């Protein structure tokens, strides 16, 4: 038997989480280093997966399969396609930066008992989330996926509710009330989505008799598994609802701004750049493969909702006073683009959407983490409390600008490529939607540049005059992300090469071919 690489990639952070949690209370720093080392080792494993993956090979590679719960027809089945590989790599890449950026976020306050170990808990929870996210990218068994899709809510919930920004304008107790509100909102939204999906998962089992994604998809493709149209649509809606909450799609998005606003910047990155990707990924992997007919049936409505997300998210981002909330609404706009790309049902659209997931992860991580560094210096999240930062902290301001420009898809930075692909892919099939969506980019320029202008330029506010520039640890977080943004902006081929074959497969699952370009004959 070959080495179970996929299991190891998910198990390593899980073991690391347990080990980190077990570090004695006094050895806080050791816990931090342990978490960092584990996350780097996981990155090494993820890179091994990336290298071992053959884009031209079988659809699912590095597969593992063991019977798990025979009574339910559940197996522990793992396998990755190009999309999953890219997202596993993204996750494993971001976690070390998240750990490093959150280095001091969970240092204990003076309250609490001798055994209260928030620091250990913080890093253990981050690693636990990583493990669960990775295994849900790898799972080719619907039940296995569902379990971790749901279970990851618990560590995430504690991360949002238990740890927040230190300084708060209304004092610690108001902050803790708002935090727990945000955490409960996050959990309830996602739990309701997940429970509705549970009903659909059970329904799928009743129809199909097992949970294997590959078997069901195959049986659907060659016609041995017939589903009544209404059944298929109900099941699709059950699955899609859960993913749309997680992604999040308008009008199920309202948990995201609260959650991102109240949590610390690294945790906010974990939410938007890592957890939410599971939602969009699952749309590609489960909705389209298991319910191709229903996916096509629902396309007009989903595209409309995605369009609303794009414009609504961008418009609300323009009006925000809170930096983190602004980034949250910007993310909602970007998730609109991703979902639009997926359901445009063209290969450019879906490649673009996958690429978008990766690029959005990197660019939002950069933007949010730098914003977090900024907020930790001044102790305020309000845009109005800043001004003229670029004169006191030029490196911070400069990197913030680059990250911001990547968010508005400036050509030459990574998100441009994906956004362009999504728009082109949408335009070839639905020109009107493609055109309207373009306004999202215009609004993106507005909210990004206004944010930069108000915080970084202008006269130096007295409160920020003593603000130190980025420290070495913070530079170590920011610099690699910026380099990646530039690199993938100029040369996206490594990612697209891995993603494209998988996208072609997904397209053929839904029996879709790209529309042929038509040229009106010259008269």
């Amino acid at each position, binding site marked *: 038997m070959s080495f179970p690489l996929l299991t190891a990639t998910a198990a390593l952070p899980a073991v690391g989480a347990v080990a980190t949690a077990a570090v004695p209370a006094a050895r806080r720093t050791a816990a931090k280093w342990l978490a960092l080392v584990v996350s780097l080792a996981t990155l090494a494993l993820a890179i091994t997966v990336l290298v071992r993956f053959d884009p031209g090979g079988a659809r699912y590679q590095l597969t593992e399969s063991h019977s798990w719960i025979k*009574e339910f027809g559940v197996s522990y089945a793992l396998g990755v396609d190009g999309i999953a590989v890219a997202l596993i790599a993204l996750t494993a890449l971001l976690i070390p930066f998240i750990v490093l950026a959150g280095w001091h976020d969970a240092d204990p306050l003076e309250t609490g008992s001798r055994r209260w170990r928030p620091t250990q808990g913080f890093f253990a929870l981050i690693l636990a989330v990583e493990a669960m996210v990775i295994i849900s990218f790898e799972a080719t068994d619907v039940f296995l996926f569902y379990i971790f899709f*749901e279970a990851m809510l618990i560590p995430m919930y504690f991360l949002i509710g238990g740890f927040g920004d230190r300084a708060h304008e209304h004092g610690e107790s108001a902050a803790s009330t708002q935090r727990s509100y945000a955490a409960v909102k996050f959990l*309830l939204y996602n739990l309701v989505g997940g*429970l509705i999906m549970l*009903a659909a998962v*059970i329904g799928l089992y*009743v129809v199909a008799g097992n949970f294997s994604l590959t078997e069901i998809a195959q049986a659907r493709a060659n016609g041995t598994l017939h589903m009544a149209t209404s059944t298929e649509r109900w099941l699709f809606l059950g699955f899609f609802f859960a993913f749309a909450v997680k992604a999040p799609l308008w009008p199920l998005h309202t948990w995201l701004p609260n959650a991102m606003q109240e949590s610390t910047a690294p945790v906010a990155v974990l939410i938007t750049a890592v957890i939410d990707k599971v939602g969009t990924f699952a749309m590609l992997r489960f909705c389209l493969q298991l319910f191709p007919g229903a996916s096509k049936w629902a396309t007009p409505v989903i595209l409309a909702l995605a369009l609303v997300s794009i414009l609504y998210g961008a418009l609300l981002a323009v009006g925000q006073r809170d930096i983190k909330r602004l980034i949250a609404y910007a993310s909602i706009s970007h998730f609109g683009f991703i979902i639009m790309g997926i359901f445009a049902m063209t290969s450019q659209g879906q490649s673009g959407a996958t690429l978008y997931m990766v690029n959005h992860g990197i660019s939002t991580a950069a933007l949010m983490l730098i914003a977090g560094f900024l907020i930790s210096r001044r102790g305020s999240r309000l845009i109005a409390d800043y001004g003229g930062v670029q004169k006191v902290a030029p490196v911070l301001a400069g990197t913030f600008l680059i990250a911001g420009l990547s968010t508005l898809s400036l050509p030459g930075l990574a998100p441009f490529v994906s956004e362009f692909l999504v728009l082109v892919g949408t335009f070839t099939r639905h020109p009107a939607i493609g055109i309207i969506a373009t306004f999202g980019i215009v609004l993106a320029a507005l909210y990004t540049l206004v944010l930069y202008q108000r915080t970084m330029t202008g006269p130096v506010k007295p409160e920020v005059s003593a603000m130190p520039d980025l420290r070495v640890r913070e530079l170590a977080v920011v610099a690699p992300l910026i380099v990646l943004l530039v690199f993938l902006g100029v040369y996206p081929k490594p990612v697209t090469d891995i993603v494209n074959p998988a996208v072609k497969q997904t397209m053929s699952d839904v029996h879709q071919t790209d529309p042929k370009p038509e040229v009106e004959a010259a008269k």
Partner: protein
Amino acid sequence: MSAAAVHSLWTTAADPISKIDAPKIEYGQLSPTLIILGAALVGVLVEAFVPRRSRYYAQVFVSAVALCAAFAAVVALAADGYGTTKAHIAAMGAIAVDGPSLFLQGTILLSGLVGLFTFAERRLDPAAHGNRVDSFAAQAASVPGSDSEKAAVKAGFTTTEVFPLLLFAVAGMLVFPSANDLLTLFVALEVFSLPLYLMCALARRKRLMSQEAAVKYFLLGAFASAFTLFGIALLYGYAGSVSYATIAQVVDGNVTNVDPALAGTMGNDALLLVGAAMVVMGLLFKVGAVPFHMWTPDVYQGAPTPVTGFMAAATKVAAFGALLRLLYVVLPGMRWDWRPVMWGVAIVTMLGGAIVAITQTDIKRLLAYSSIAHAGFILAGVIATSKDGVSSVLFYLAAYSFVTIGAFAVVTLVRDAGGEATHLSKWAGLGRRSPLVAAVFAVFLLAFAGIPLTSGFAGKFAVFKAAAEGGAVPLVVIGVISSAIAAFFYIRVIVLMFFSEPRPEGPTVAVPSPLTMTAIGVGVAVTVVLGVAPQYFLNLASQAGVFVR
């Protein structure tokens, strides 16, 4: 009626007397129940003859040995093939020894054992006059607040009678799900109910509340028993027999040897419908299903917490076992009549329990309403009327009982000057003060909420799957919705424990003896194992899922 008819009636009644054989009792197959009953009697003798200071140790020892021995007997029977390859109706048709019986008996015995550990805990309450005390009244007969109570406390009396009472209750519960005729069912019902009524009244603290709870439980319970008994009488009139198999045959329309005295009523569907409804009603009362749930919150809150934990777990197991057997063995022929009714009961139970729980401010009442919601989920599996339905209910019961006992054991640890601090506001910030206890309780709450990787999820999934396969898709959807509602209040408690600031005069967490620690540890272990690797136990439940008739 003519004289001749009376005469012939008299002779037919008298005639078989000469032919009565000595009843044949399969002692081996009945050994789990017999061991427990024997030990309970030994416990009574211990009360009478052993000096007061060593009674506690003697009672705990006898009870623990008996529960372990009875569990060993169940395992031996199962290993002998009962429940999988063979089944038997023992004690002249009174007791069924089959898969569901053995599985449920094993579950009841283990929860009895874990419950015993919480009963025997003597480190939580501060010592009174140099004597270590448990959760039970010093002298149940003394009026609360009276001089005689003070004297009893001062003398260091303890109510060691709870241990034989526990054993009697367990014995009744062992018989209840395996009863194979209606009279045995009724006797078992009374055998386990009466000790429970008594134990509810025995709290050391808040005695008036405890006694009130016991009176409520007793009155409503007696009422429900009366219904059951009346139903049994009607069913006898319908079928001419109290034996499950005979009634089932009559329901199916295969009437053999009609009793001339009952010729007028036999086969009368009105009797069947009313009788079955009344018997089922009595069982639904014990299960705590809406609209027969009114006693649950008061009794759960007032009873001594160890008793609440044991009662919540084991009663539910026994009552659902009996309900399953009744519906699957006696009344499968009329499932088109009872299924719609049970649908309704399951729906209001799930939604009612979950919705009312939201407004609760006392942790024991909250868990009581949560147990009502869980009864609704289990009913969804009962309605499936398939083999999967049986095995999913068996699995759910096993998973649920350990979570429940563990959760109530944690409740006993959180204390302030007035005893257990059960008001929710006092639990604020518990996670900061004692992270471990709060984390353990969070695990139990997550299991109640049915979060994946806990036993609660595996159980809920099994039950809903069986229901969906049985065609009850709307029931599954409603179940899922009420799970979401229920999740809200479980999470509220977690929020309170971890994200709220601790109160300055908040409760302290008592350090328990190894007994309670074992109970909680077993709870956590079962919760996690059944959540991560349920395969073995699902398999066991599925092998055990066939009733003998």
